[in-house]
């Protein structure tokens, strides 16, 4: 297999090339003004390793895939077009009001709770560009008030005269009956034909999201319209660049659903967060290769700590109403939780409880931690790690960022000296302990709320600071195995290379699987099966449109279910795709009951309140060939690695510094064992093996951290 996968991030463009049985990876700075330049630069580095030029490589690969976080940047920079919106009369302020809570979406708990200062973000669509149509459709799709063509023309003219460069139509209950949205489009195209220069794109809400909820569906459509041209131009330029360099096949774009598609089958919104989501996809692939049932993937970088779940056989973990930047939207997106701590998180004194606090503020990369010597005055997690001896001042980030321990010490003294009668190194220990604890709390909550026990999980640690803090975090959760994956510095790019063509179609529908009022079980199997067939047909069509074999298309059927009038539904993956008898109905009820009990506790189920299906969802996909790594665990006899040097380091729970062996990753081969405490330095990260842990190396740079069964005592577990 020959394949190129790329993750275009805010700072770096990561490239991963599978070339037969060999793998190559590279990094280049992202060139925002022309993404192709960064891509070409990164690819050229990989090509150099392969020994071929760019054109040769692109001519021979079977696919090029992109994951990117560019959409997020476009939102933050407000670089989208002027969007005008048409809504149902009486709902003009639904968007500005943002369900009341819009002031706090995407912010931390403290900001959410401070009503006195709460402020909504600047709107993507100001009130003057929101117009209403005199019409109304009921919850069941009945047209209560018919749309008037004259009214539509009047409002369209008003929006265009007001400067709208893209239009969104989001009418109440359009998911039940989209006739009015379609009629608006029809009138619009007759008045403003698409073939004319200056044609304005119009997006219909029911086409972007099949879910009910006038605010989230409209926001989804607005953001999609807002990002559409930016993403289209950026990705089209990339495609043109590929063509110019000899690549003739369609370019593939990773989606935040965990799937991917060609550019012509991709909504702008589906690309948001697709880079980090590709990291989860890579984790899922590793789980399969390493035969691990439950993985919690963690990406600890400079400013944040992202976590995601992979459970084999447990279905995908989606957010159906994720927050994008500061807005709640309605799209299925692989669930990722961002906890506000990374190497740049600022440590401060908590006068209330006489303790050390980390975050929520971050020094980011500019000015960065105090020890970067770039003007940062506040102590950060990285400053603490440096004072504890974990980081090599001369070789941090491959020697590109020299660290100044004096600055770190000074910053800690300044921040804590007046309050804590402790040496800065002792305070650094408290900072490390606090940040590890915070991350463990966040991970523990994320797992337990989904009914999982943290100790049953293997932790995957990537990102610049992941392997440095993973033992400390895992310890607190009872996790005994941590995998620092191969190619961790380009992990999302690697994931982008392993995703499958996938499309998700869903339909909101109120099905009483069991009606508490009539005590009847659902028996309208024809209705149910026809919906599934329709969704499967849509998914198949999406994939076939991209030149795939319809016979190879697989479908996964999921239902969103709830007891009675609960707000939030639970996604249940069905073990059958059609219903024929009441036994099938009961089987679904049982599946839901088991999933509910696993999550909320046995006995918490409430079938007596009625069992409802609110959404039928079909994920259609093709199992593509994936990049195989072979064994990710040591396969041979373990040998002890020889350290390059030793350094005195401080560790929580030890009163005195410990003499800590130092290793260099590039000198380590597979099947080597290092007992903690130990430090392994690599170009893009530092591996910290804490006391009572050991490290084992495997092929392709994969590294395992394993907790010894008895603290401080070596075991062969």
């Amino acid at each position, binding site marked *: 297999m020959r394949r190129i996968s790329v993750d275009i991030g805010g700072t770096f463009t990561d490239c991963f090339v599978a070339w037969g049985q060999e793998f190559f990876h590279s990094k280049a700075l992202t060139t925002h003004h022309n993404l192709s330049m960064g891509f070409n630069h990164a690819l050229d580095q990989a090509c150099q390793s392969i020994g071929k030029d760019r054109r040769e490589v692109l001519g021979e690969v079977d696919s090029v895939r992109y994951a990117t976080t560019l959409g997020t940047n476009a939102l933050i920079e407000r670089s989208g077009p002027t969007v005008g919106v048409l809504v149902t009369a009486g709902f003009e302020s639904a968007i500005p009001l943002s369900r009341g809570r819009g002031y706090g979406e995407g912010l931390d708990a403290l900001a959410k709770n401070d009503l006195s200062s709460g402020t*909504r973000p600047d709107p993507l669509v100001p*009130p003057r560009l929101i117009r209403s149509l005199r019409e109304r459709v009921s919850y069941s799709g009945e047209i209560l008030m018919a749309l008037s063509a004259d009214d539509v023309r009047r409002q369209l003219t008003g929006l265009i005269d007001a400067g709208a460069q893209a239009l969104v139509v989001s009418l109440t209950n359009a998911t039940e009956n989209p006739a009015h949205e379609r009629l608006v489009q029809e009138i619009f195209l007759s008045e403003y034909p698409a073939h004319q220069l200056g044609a304005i794109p119009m997006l219909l809400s029911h086409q972007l999201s099949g879910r009910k909820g006038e605010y989230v569906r409209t926001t989804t459509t607005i953001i999609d319209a807002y990002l559409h041209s930016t993403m289209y131009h950026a990705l089209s330029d990339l495609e043109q660049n590929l063509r110019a360099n000899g690549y003739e096949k369609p370019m593939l774009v990773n989606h935040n659903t965990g799937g991917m598609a060609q550019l012509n089958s991709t909504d702008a919104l589906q690309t948001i967060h697709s880079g980090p989501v590709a990291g989860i996809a890579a984790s899922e692939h590793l789980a399969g290769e390493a035969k691990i049932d439950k993985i919690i993937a963690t990406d600890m970088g400079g400013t944040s700590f992202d976590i995601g779940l992979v459970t084999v056989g447990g279905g995908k973990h989606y957010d159906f109403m994720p927050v994008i930047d500061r807005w709640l939207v309605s799209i299925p997106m692989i669930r990722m939780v961002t906890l506000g701590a990374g190497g740049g998180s600022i440590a401060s004194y908590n006068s209330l409880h006489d303790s*050390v606090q980390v975050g929520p503020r971050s020094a980011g990369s500019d000015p960065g931690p105090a020890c970067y010597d770039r003007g940062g005055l506040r102590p950060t997690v990285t400053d603490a790690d440096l004072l504890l001896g974990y980081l090599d001042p001369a070789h941090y980030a491959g020697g590109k960022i020299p660290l100044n321990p004096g600055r770190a010490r000074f910053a800690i003294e300044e921040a804590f000296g007046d309050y804590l009668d402790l040496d800065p190194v002792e305070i650094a220990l408290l900072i490390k302990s606090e940040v590890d604890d915070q991350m463990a709390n966040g991970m523990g909550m994320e797992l337990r709320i989904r009914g999982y026990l943290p100790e049953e999980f293997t932790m995957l640690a990537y990102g610049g600071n992941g392997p440095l803090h993973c033992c400390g975090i895992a310890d607190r959760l009872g996790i005994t195995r941590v995998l620092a994956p191969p190619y961790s510095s380009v992990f999302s790019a690697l994931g982008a290379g392993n995703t499958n063509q996938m499309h998700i179609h869903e339909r909101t529908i109120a099905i009483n699987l069991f009606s508490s009022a009539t005590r009847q079980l659902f028996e309208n199997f024809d209705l149910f099966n026809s919906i599934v067939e329709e969704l499967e047909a849509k998914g198949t069509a999406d994939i076939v449109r991209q030149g795939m074999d319809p016979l190879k298309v697989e479908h996964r059927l999921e239902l969103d279910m709830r007891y009675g009038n609960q707000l*939030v539904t639970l996604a249940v993956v069905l073990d059958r795709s059609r219903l024929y008898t009441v036994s099938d109905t009961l089987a679904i009820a049982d599946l839901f009951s088991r999933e509910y009990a696993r999550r909320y506790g046995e006995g918490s189920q409430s079938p007596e309140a009625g069992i409802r299906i609110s959404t039928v969802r079909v994920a259609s996909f093709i199992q593509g060939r994936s990049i195989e790594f072979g064994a990710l665990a040591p396969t041979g006899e373990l040998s002890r690695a020889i350290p390059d040097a030793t350094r005195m380091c401080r560790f929580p729970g030890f009163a005195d510094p410990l003499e800590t062996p130092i290793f260099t990753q590039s000198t380590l081969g597979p099947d080597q064992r290092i007992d903690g405490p130990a430090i392994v330095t690599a170009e893009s990260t530092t591996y910290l093996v804490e006391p009572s842990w050991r490290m084992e190396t495997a092929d392709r740079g994969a590294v395992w951290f394993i907790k010894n069964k008895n603290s401080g005592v070596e075991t062969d577990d």
Partner: protein
Amino acid sequence: MTNDRTPYSPEEQIKVDEFLAGATLFLGPDPEIMRDHKSAARTPLEEELLSRPIDSDALDKVRKRIVAGLDEAYEMMEQTGAAPGAKWGDLTSAVYSAGGDLVHISSGGVLAFASVLHYPVRFINKYWAQEPSVGIHDGDAFIHNDARYGNIHCTDQSIIIPVFHEGELIAWVATVVHEGENGAKEPGGMPSSSESAFDDGLRMPPFKIFERGVLRRDLLTFLQNSVREPKLQYQDLKVKYYAALRIKERVLAVIDEVGRDAFIVSMRKSLEDVEAEARRRVSLIPDGTYRVNLWSDSTLRENVLLKYPCAITIRGDQMIIDWRGAAPQFLNRAFNSTLGTSKCGMNQGILAFLWPDLPRGISVMNSIEVLTDTGSCLDPTDDAPLGQSLQGAFKAFATTQALWSKLTFSCQEKFGAIIAPWFNQINTFLFGGITQHQEFVGNVCADLNGMGGGARAYRDGEHSMAPFFAAMADIGEQEIIEEDVPFMQLISKKIKRDNQGFGKFRGGMGYEMALAAKDTPFWGFAAVSSGSKFPATPGLFGGYGCPTLPLAKIKGVNVFEQMKNSPENWQFDFERLLNEQPLPGAKYSTHHMGMALELANEGDIFMMCQGSGGGYGDVLERDPAEVMADVEAGYISSTTAREIYFCVFDADTLAVDSRATEAARNAERRARLERGRPYAEFVEDWVTEAPPQTVPYYGSWGDDNSTIHATAWAATGPIKLALPMSQMPPIMLPDPKDLAIAGLQAENEALRAAASRGDA
């Protein structure tokens, strides 16, 4: 009267106490518990443990882990709760010390629970621990809702679970949800027409619903029989119970990890740290007394004027909140608020606005004394109805929030923004009836969460942002709500034009809503708000208060038929519907915002507007560009721009004539000076000895809070009273319908008499 009885000997006293304990008729709300809002002093065990060296960082980790467990339970309830309140954020989870002090609450949800949840736990400890028929055992769970035993109002239900560690009661955990329906006189759990405590619905003192892990189906069946939504009662009981079990699990895991002693010390230190910080912050406020007087214009049955005075005195690290002089309790009206509930309002003001960064626990109140008149509507007796106690509690909040900015304006260290008062009323509809799914429901619309925020000293307030009592609460999605209930909001989210607290920075505005029932055999709406004649919310430093708007009805036509057959008649606009009256044959009416459940025919229209936050500063200082932005958005009319903000502009282009505007504003400044009068002269003319005879006025008058003015109803009709609260007779007003009938009868009799006299 003096007691001349010879004191009992110690032996006699023991026997008398034993006898009296055995002869207890009724374990009603215990004043010793209910009047004490502070956390208890250290126990001997805590004293001993705290005398040892303390690792503050380790304790902080315990604290964070407990709060993480509470947040986990909160999310569980929000996800699985069936009540609308649970769906839209009206819930919380909490941990208490073994003695019953509330120590930690979840990060989200209703933080006013911080001032109320400890009362029922203390009651259980005091009365049920040693009671052979009850007792407290591992696996037990108590249910509770009665505000008299400590709750915001009886529509909230809680599950309270003891946590035992190696046989020792070491903590309590609880979960609370605004459930809505509770079997009260009207569906939805907040009856505005409640005329006695017995109309308030279920009144559960804390009792055991799970016995050693087993649900008491007999009691559950009794509860289900007592409410209109038996399904909700059972489903959410489980939701609260399993969420509380989750907290218990997390607490025990923390204890297993850090040990029992560290857990106890962490809990105690949390209380003491918060108290110390609260005292420090009080001491930053300049000493003095700060005053405000607010009024409510409704008992929810009729228009009256109810006074809510507040004086906050700061002396060092002590804060005294004085609500004496408030209107008396009404024994047949629903707006009374227990002292504990009133303190919730105060606590809410502190934790959401004054010190929003402070951890939420009961000890934040330790530096505060509260003075009230027993028998007032903020401290009523146990027999007063409490069906709509939020009226009193929200005014208690409003009085304190109105003062925080004045207290802290000159403080160098501020913790919350300087902000004008938030809107403080429940401007939405309650509902009850049979749904399109043939189920009976009774509850409240999520629109109550859309209160307008106050203007800040540096920027405008946020429109319909959140209720002041629950950050991140949700006004919901109408499409989703319509799936479960048989009514539609034909006007759903539309900011009401000119519904603005004007000012240099304007308050956040509220939106209008028009509801109509459809496809139901039986449906009704109710409303529980005030402020249709007297502004519910004042402004700050020259800013205007919120406007007054009525509840409106359009009856006699089916709006759905109109929309289908004569769509041109229907207007999606509150103002146009009332002013233009476009539906032929319809009857249009406006009302105050207290409406007992009223049956709705299909297509009847019920309308209301969510309220606005107060404005900040002088309207003449508002940036004309901001005024024009509001005109362009349709938030204010051109008339308001001209006559309130004194902007001169082109009506077509909205271009401001800066010079003309400045001139108009200067002219208005001069006019103000000309209208102005010396203060003493103004007082001489304006101030009267007593309230006007024509106004049904309740509460103190002027600065004298020792005399309460009221209009009582005697057999002969209304009589005016001016008495100390302790001498005030029970205030009971006649049913407005009786008065209306009496008026009609009198009219009828007069007509008959005239007819018999042969008058023309």
